[in-house]
């Protein structure tokens, strides 16, 4: 299942001296109609929404600098959800 590791710029960043209001990471997946309705998933670190070919992760603790470890954990969760969904619908 193609998952383009396309991390979006940090959203909500005010300037380099202030904390951001929100930090979002975004990936794309295909096919865009993989989920019948938008799917939301939450854990201690992130709120995820899968909708229309876009997986949007909003960090629960906004930051201007996302560590590689955190980004990898979120990406793994995104990939895991796509793998489970693929099992449900049997689609590439």
């Amino acid at each position, binding site marked *: *299942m193609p998952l383009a590791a396309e991390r979006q710029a940090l959203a909500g960043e005010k300037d380099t001296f202030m904390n951001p209001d929100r930090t979002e990471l975004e990936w794309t997946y295909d096919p865009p109609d993989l989920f019948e309705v938008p799917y939301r998933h939450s854990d201690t670190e992130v709120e995820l929404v899968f909708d229309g070919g876009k997986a949007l992760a909003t960090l629960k603790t906004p930051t201007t600098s996302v560590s590689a470890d955190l980004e990898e954990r979120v990406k793994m*969760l995104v990939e895991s*959800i796509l*793998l*489970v969904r693929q099992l*449900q619908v049997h689609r590439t």
Partner: protein
Amino acid sequence: MALGGQADVVARDAAGNILHDSRAERIARDVDLLDAVSPKLACSTVLRRLFESYSRSVANPTDEFVYLYEVRDRLSAHYGGEQAARNALQITKNDWQRLGLLANVEPLVQGRHRGKHSRGQRVATRAELEDARRLVCEWIIAFARIV
């Protein structure tokens, strides 16, 4: 114009209240499984590998049974043998052997030993494909529930 799959069914009483909504029920079941299983893939390498094998079976339809059989192999290796795997996941001998038959014995284009069947080779029927997919899905989900 093409109609896809089965129709969703909504049953209502005389007042219009919904008694049964197959789409809503399917979505709720799907969400329950996504919520319960997805986080476990980060904690269990075996579980992740099972899902990856299934994913490769979807992405490579001409090798579908090769990758579906990988799931059986991985479960067997994880539990230390067929009997232990079947006991742990409550898989019947018939079901276990059914996948073996499709992947190894039937002269199928998607099978693991297609080279042995240069004559009389055939494409798996829809029923055979659905059977193999259903079995492997059930086994993966059974493993995911107890891991």
